[in-house]
């Protein structure tokens, strides 16, 4: 199938275009609206998300039957995989916008830029999910990264936020520099930037003895540094606790969900399309490398989460651990594995965003991000406390909540490929994880608030938004939608 030309592609690029347009519109609106308390920009960005969502659906269904297409002469690809991630990312963005509306951390005067940046980062993530060219991959990654640095350091009056941004950018720059070096090696070996051709070229060259497996190994590892830093896998995870703790809570939520999802989109596409051939894997057993990385990631994430006192930081480590679980699906090279990742990402979106939303609410009302701040919440705000319980328990992977079904599918896929040790490590980790989730539950339910016993009341809108996360977290597992995810994943697994 021929890639579409630049002009032909434009129509199918409408979601991204819309995002950019709305980002610009937000900035302009912000300049126009003088009222600092106005929430117009937020709603405009929400409308932007909605329009983009419509556009995503439109582009998806206009090509739904004919299969995936390459756009812009092979730079990006429009397929069900990218559409899936676009929807997911839009959900995360919309949720973040709603969180930000409620958050009291953010400077009201900067919200124009804030929402514009949110839309811009979504734009970058869209590209991450659909890039098929080394250059596009790098540019989209950089777009997302740069925007993230800025968002993480958005609280200009907060040293923690600045520190987060500083660490983030230092870390990110080195990681992406390393990745770029790896990409250059790949480019040098394959002589092309097109992901689809790299696999074939490398295979040929390896077979001909023209390149050493070590070269491929180094290239893969260097690339992994960039991708791994996006999904916060060990040993590229170390920025994330600090950044998550320092960044504004909505941004933390956004990074932990959207950034990770986009990272996984990139990861899957890159590794499956670029290094998915059997010969390549014989030369460099990267699935095994990833399996080890995955095991390390979840273990380190969970263990480090154990002693945390700051809920945001705790959730950061938890998010690292979840990255480890997700990576398991990545090592399998099966549509089940990828399908499991996709499904888990959906589940993770709801439960993790939900948990962060509660963190936002508590930070607003109680003014604390620490576990102690959650004491006695069960009597002060029972509904919120119970919602938090549901999110946390789901994160721990206990039935009947969605998190369990996510893990279930993931582990089934892992076991199907005979990775018993990996599954066992993962499951034992989920036992460990229960402990620190339970610490929050303990604080909320088993401990008294001390002198502060006043009830915390929340608006109806808060509960409505909360239920948007609670309901899927409870019921998503019971819906019969697994096939869909396996089918989606097939479109990115060319070799099988």
């Amino acid at each position, binding site marked *: 199938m021929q890639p579409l030309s630049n002009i032909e*592609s434009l129509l199918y690029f409408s979601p991204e275009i819309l995002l950019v347009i709305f980002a610009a519109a937000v900035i302009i609106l912000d300049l126009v609206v003088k009222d600092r308390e106005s929430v117009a920009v937020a709603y405009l960005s929400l409308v932007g998300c909605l329009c983009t969502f419509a556009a995503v659906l439109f582009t998806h269904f206009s090509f739904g039957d004919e299969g995936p297409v390459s756009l812009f002469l092979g730079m990006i690809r429009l397929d069900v995989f990218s559409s899936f991630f676009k929807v997911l990312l839009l959900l995360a963005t919309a949720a973040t916008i709603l969180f930000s509306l409620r958050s009291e951390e953010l400077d009201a005067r900067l919200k124009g830029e804030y929402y514009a940046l949110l839309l811009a980062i979504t734009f*970058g993530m869209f590209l991450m999910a659909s890039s098929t060219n080394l250059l596009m991959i790098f540019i989209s990654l950089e777009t997302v990264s740069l925007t993230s640095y800025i968002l993480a350091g958005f609280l200009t*009056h907060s040293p923690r936020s600045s520190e987060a*941004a500083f660490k983030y950018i230092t870390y990110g720059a080195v990681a992406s520099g390393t990745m770029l070096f790896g990409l250059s090696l790949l480019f040098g070996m394959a002589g092309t930037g097109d992901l689809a051709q790299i696999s074939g070229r490398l295979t040929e060259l390896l077979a001909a003895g023209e390149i*050493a497996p070590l070269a491929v190994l*180094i290239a893969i590892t260097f690339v992994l540094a960039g991708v791994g830093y996006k999904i916060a896998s060990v040993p590229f995870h170390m920025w994330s606790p600090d950044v998550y703790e320092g960044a504004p809570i909505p941004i933390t939520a956004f990074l932990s969900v959207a950034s990770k999802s986009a990272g996984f989109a990139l990861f899957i596409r890159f590794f499956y399309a670029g290094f998915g051939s059997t010969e390549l894997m014989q030369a460099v057993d990267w699935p095994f490398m990833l399996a080890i990385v995955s095991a390390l990631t979840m273990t380190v994430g969970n263990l480090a989460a154990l002693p945390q006192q700051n809920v945001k930081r705790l959730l950061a480590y938890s998010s690292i651990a979840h990255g480890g679980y997700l990576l398991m699906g990545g090592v399998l090279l099966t549509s089940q594995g990828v399908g499991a990742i996709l499904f888990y990402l959906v589940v993770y979106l709801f439960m993790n965003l939900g948990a962060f939303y509660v963190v936002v609410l508590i930070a607003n009302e109680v003014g604390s991000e620490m576990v102690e701040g959650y004491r006695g919440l069960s009597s002060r705000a029972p509904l919120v406390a119970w919602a938090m319980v549901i999110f946390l328990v789901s994160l721990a992977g206990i039935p009947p909540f969605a998190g369990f079904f996510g893990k279930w599918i993931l582990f089934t896929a892992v076991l199907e490929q005979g990775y018993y040790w990996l599954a066992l490590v993962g499951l034992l980790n989920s036992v460990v994880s229960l402990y620190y989730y339970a610490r929050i539950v303990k604080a909320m339910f088993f401990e008294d608030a001390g002198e502060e016993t006043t009830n915390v009341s929340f608006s109806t809108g808060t509960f409505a938004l909360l239920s948007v996360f609670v309901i899927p977290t409870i019921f998503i597992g019971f819906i019969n939608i697994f096939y869909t995810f396996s089918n989606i994943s097939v479109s990115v697994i060319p070799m099988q």
Partner: protein
Amino acid sequence: MEFALKNFIFYGFALMTVASALLVVTVRNIVHAAFSLMVTLFGIAGLYVFLQADFLAATQVIVYVGGILVLILFGVMMTSGRLEMRIHIERGQLLLGGVVSLALLTLLLTVIANTPAWKNLTDDGTEFPPTTKRIGELILDGPFLLPFEVVSVLLLVALIGAALISRKEVRE
């Protein structure tokens, strides 16, 4: 003879690049490091010329030397004052960093040495047409249109972001 001279100049540039880069990472004075970096960047630009990437070389000089380096010097001025020009280095860190860097270098050199595909590719001195026009075509009517447009968004974001973050106290 011409060939030899070319070689000589090449090695000169190469040496200049590497040596100045070494200074960049070793000198204790930040301003000196910045100037060494300038030399490195120039050296690389020279190497680009040898690679017959004329547009690239020009961009390197304009953007890096003209933009980034100035930016860095501004940064130095704004943060270090006159007293804090010295860069702190700690011995243990130096050792660990050195080991890791050395290991990486060894790995990379091993790869470079052991990749047949990259061996024996000598610059035979063939002249290629200037690249500027082709680059323009490829960027505006070729596969690089999209990256170009995306980069524009990225630059906009960087612009906004840099302004946002570096502005002084938002709350007076």
